[in-house]
């Protein structure tokens, strides 16, 4: 059994990191075209979804729109439990279910659509490095602020997370999730950080992204890639979400080229599509009054 896993791992080595079980299935379904009824599942938009989940979901939606693949966004209260890896969002295409941006990118690549084919090896290395930077710093900071900062956890995160459930399940699930996230923070050494240090990290990450972007329209000049989708997902969510304090959004607003980057992607990929896009339910970049 480990041998066949290693074989799968080596087979898909060129495609990047992946769960070897799933990519074995993915290669089988590579021949089928993209169906019309592809669906993306995420938690309930207005009441339940949290900052980090919304960022991930938006990143996947942005990527799919950049690839010109139609997908319907379906909101379900139990999306997290339906997902094969426990993480949202996940897409349901044909008879395949794939979750998280990394595996989804490979799945789409297996179907023949890719945004990063034109990059050479060094650029691909850079792209992967920057995606890890966003995951390592921005996503972890979002999780920290949501679950480890007691104010935010009490006023926003726990009520939202447990909103679809009745008593006592809502308390049990919320505290269980909080315990899990705090354990993970402790393992990676973030438990000892103060909120200010976390904001400082976010600022550093945004500075790095801003310097890398420079004056270009996208990170790798003319064409958007999955890095652009990921960065857009996180930054747009941070800018349009209201937490107990505005400091997180302020950190991002310091960098004007990141703001115009988000606006550009929003205009190019989200506004000329159906009305029920992210812009209708979340507010525009200039007025961030949507309570998360």
């Amino acid at each position, binding site marked *: 059994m*480990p041998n066949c896993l*290693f074989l799968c791992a080596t087979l898909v080595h060129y495609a990047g*990191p992946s769960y070897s079980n799933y990519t074995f299935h993915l290669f089988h379904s590579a021949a089928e075209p993209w169906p019309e009824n592809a669906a993306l599942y995420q938690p309930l938009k207005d009441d339940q979804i949290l900052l980090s989940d919304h960022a991930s979901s938006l990143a996947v939606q942005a990527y799919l729109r950049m690839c010109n693949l139609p997908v319907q966004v379906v909101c379900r209260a139990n999306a997290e439990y339906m997902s094969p890896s426990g993480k949202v969002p996940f897409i349901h295409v044909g008879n395949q279910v794939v979750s998280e941006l990394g595996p989804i990118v490979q799945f789409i690549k297996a179907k023949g659509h890719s945004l990063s084919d034109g990059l050479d090896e060094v650029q691909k*290395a850079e792209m992967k*490095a920057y995606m*890890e930077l966003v995951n*390592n710093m921005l996503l972890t900071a979002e999780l920290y602020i949501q679950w480890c900062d007691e104010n935010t956890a009490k006023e926003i995160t726990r009520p939202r997370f447990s909103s679809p459930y009745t008593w006592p399940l809502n308390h049990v699930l919320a505290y269980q999730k909080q315990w899990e996230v705090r354990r993970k923070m402790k*393992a990676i050494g973030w438990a000892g950080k103060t909120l200010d240090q976390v904001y400082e990290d976010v600022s550093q990450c945004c500075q790095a992204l801003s*310097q890398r972007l420079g004056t270009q329209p996208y990170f790798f000049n003319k064409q958007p890639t999955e890095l652009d989708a990921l960065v857009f997902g996180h930054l747009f969510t941070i800018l349009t979400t209201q937490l107990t304090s505005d400091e997180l959004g302020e950190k991002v607003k310091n960098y004007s080229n990141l703001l115009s980057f988000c606006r550009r992607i929003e205009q190019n990929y989200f506004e000329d599509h159906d009305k029920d896009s992210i812009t209708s339910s979340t507010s525009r970049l200039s007025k961030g009054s949507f309570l998360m």
Partner: protein
Amino acid sequence: MATPMELSCWGGDWGLPSIHTESLIVMAYAKFSGAELKIQTIDWTWKTLTGTVPALNLEDAVVTKPVHIVNYLRKQKYNVDYDLTAKQGADTLAYIALLEEKLHPALLHTFWVDAENYSNVTRPWFASRTPFPLNFYLPCRQASAALNRILLTKGEPPLHSITEVEAKIYSDAKECLNLLSHRLGTSQYFFGNKPTSLDAFVFGFLAPLHKAHLPSGQLQQHLKQLPSLANFCDNIISTYFVQNGLGLSPAGQDTVDANLQKLTQLVNKESNLIEKMDDNLRSSPQHRARRSTNSNASLVAEESSSSTPA
């Protein structure tokens, strides 16, 4: 700044000043930037249990974690990233994140979770450098912390068992090494001809893997197949950690020479002994009895053999 700063860290072996990744990062950065650091190893002290390493001990504060120590040194004007452009500075941050996310779990696994490596290499090393009775407790604690970290960050469902997680983290790590190798290419350091903080971080992560003698090291094998990274490590060791009075490599060389001398002396002694024994045997009565039967032939043979070498 007038008084030298003191760095407490784990000691070294295998030709490296320290085998602990984070300590090595700080030491390499200090060497690149010319900062004078007084190295205080925590081997054989109770600090192995209570202290967090590496820790920079200043007069009024203690700075831990490589990132913070590097930032502190930068503020004290020991800055090797001065010449980098803004984009290169951003790249540094991104590559460090890549190392942490993709390479670090596999390194933790190689040294602390893999049963053969742990019992043959890591545990004896750490146990031999911690005072009694900590040597029974400390390696196990570090190993379980490492396993915990791997499982919590990478072991989310559906990868429930450690074997599936292993496959994923090793493939991630190999890909990370390939990416680093592509990025380094043929140049000596990551950003031109002078080392920067990214070089310090990459060196800290790769050098223990490169130098340790691991019985089961698939990641080590993979690293050996990437000559640019292996040369990068060796280059830094020979440039920055040999000339200085850290004394490890020159002392290593001397001990090697001394060992070689001793070995040759032993061999000579052995050969002398063997010759003596041979003579004794030939002159012994038992041998003489046997020799009498074919004495002529042997005498002639001996005479010829004694004459030909001369």
